């Protein structure tokens, strides 16, 4: 029985070669566009993850903090917020001198005005604006703490950019899904209408809608799988072409690529099944 369906799907594919090629190319174009957004999203995520890893919170301490208080504070920070690194006033001054480079610029400063600080490499779950803001407020509550800085505006923009990229990828995916539905609906309608007489004969012989629809469904999945393969090939070629100019631009990881093909096939499956139900009911009983 399964052999019959495959044979029929292949027969229809061959019989409507022009329509099949048009359908595959249309789907490939749509999938390539959405795949490019996916590639951008993937690379943006990678870049953001790299930047995010470098996000840290700086906790400035009051001058009168004792060693015991410092040790307790470090323990609490380690427990709840991330990995702390202590920088005393002398180290902070040396770092400032190193950053400025010209000792004459600091010659007028008599006493070291810089406070001691703790640089906190935050836990992964705190690497977003809302969590960092909350963490900063909590750390600020400790009596040993003078001030907390974490680059709020920078972190907020980074998060907004990240969310924007994800939204764009989803929007592109949704538009591609909608377009896939339209392309497949029209392809299937044309294919089935071209074989209307055969469909009517099969209905008279007692064929169920499922029996009639299965080869067409398989054909639509063949189109989509081919189109997804072509799209992945084009996206790979694009990535290779741009990789020399945009260092760090990587191709989709295998799970993403498989997910891309799987999602395209799933959308095609649902769209084709819905379209065929509608088309066969329109043909009649």
């Amino acid at each position: 029985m399964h052999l019959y369906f495959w044979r029929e799907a292949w027969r229809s594919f061959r019989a409507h070669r022009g329509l099949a090629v048009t359908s595959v190319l249309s789907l490939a174009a749509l999938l390539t566009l959405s795949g490019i957004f996916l590639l951008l999203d993937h690379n943006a995520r990678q870049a953001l993850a790299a930047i995010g890893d470098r996000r840290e919170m700086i906790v400035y301490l009051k001058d009168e903090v004792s060693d015991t208080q410092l040790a307790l504070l470090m323990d609490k920070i380690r427990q709840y917020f991330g990995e702390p690194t202590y920088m005393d006033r002398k180290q902070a001054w040396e770092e400032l001198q190193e950053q400025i480079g010209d000792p004459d610029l600091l010659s007028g400063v008599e006493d070291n005005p810089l406070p001691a600080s703790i640089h906190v490499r935050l836990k992964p779950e705190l690497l977003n604006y809302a969590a960092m803001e909350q963490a900063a407020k909590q750390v600020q509550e400790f009596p040993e703490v003078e001030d907390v800085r974490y680059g709020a505006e920078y972190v907020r923009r980074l998060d907004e950019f990240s969310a924007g990229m994800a939204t764009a990828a989803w929007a592109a995916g949704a538009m591609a899904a909608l377009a896939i539905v339209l392309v497949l609906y029209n392809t299937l309608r044309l294919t089935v209408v071209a074989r209307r007489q055969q469909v009517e004969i099969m209905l008279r012989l007692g064929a169920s809608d499922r029996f009639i629809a299965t080869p067409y469904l398989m054909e639509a999945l063949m189109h989509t799988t081919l189109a997804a393969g072509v799209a992945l090939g084009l996206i790979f070629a694009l990535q290779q072409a741009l990789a020399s100019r945009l260092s760090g631009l990587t191709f989709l990881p295998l799970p993403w690529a498989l997910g891309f093909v799987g999602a395209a096939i799933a959308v095609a499956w649902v769209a084709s099944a819905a379209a065929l139900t509608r088309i066969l009911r329109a043909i009649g009983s």
Partner: protein
Amino acid sequence: MIAFEHVTKRYGERLALDDVTWRMEEGECAVVLGHSAAGKTTLLRLITHETQPTSGVITVGTFRGGRLSRSHRALLRRTIGVIYEDFRLLADRTVFENVALALHISGQHTDADVVPKVLRALQEVGLEPHRDLLPAELSFGERQRCAIARAIVNRPALILADEPTGALEPKSAAEVLSLLLRIHHEGAALLLGTTRTEVANVIGGRRYLLEDGRLREGGPGSMPVSVAQGAGGL
């Protein structure tokens, strides 16, 4: 097997069947005679649920009355073998594939089962040597025999034939009728609709006349003749 209870069918203002009450039992043979557009095809289409009665109840086997769902209509049709005047073969399939289609549709046979069953049906109608030909490469008589093979391959208990010799020259018509009779004698019920008294004479069985939407038992030329004798006038 088939029961019509006060069945009326209208197409707009036109009355095709008028309060028809009629029964056909298992293994029976019946011929419905009537002029063109008398309602013979409507009667057959009502049995296969291709159309619905305006009023009345139709029972076919275990399927009784009302508007059947699409899946139940499909199930019903799989239990009946139907032969049409214009053959209704799939033009891009070989003789073998056309016959095999009915087996695939039934969903009860593996791919391995299909081949011997199709070959047996083709042998019964004498088309085994033409198994790889397309319908367009066959004569009309051979096409009808292919349609008969398709109708009988599932061994249905009921064969409906709608003017099966309408498009055939006398010799082919005689062969087709002979074939139908043989299938009936092997146990299948046969209901045949025709405009030709000679066909009814060859088939024999119960005879009905469909006129002005009314179905009456009996009819003109009720004396059965042999297939050989009738061949010339078909």
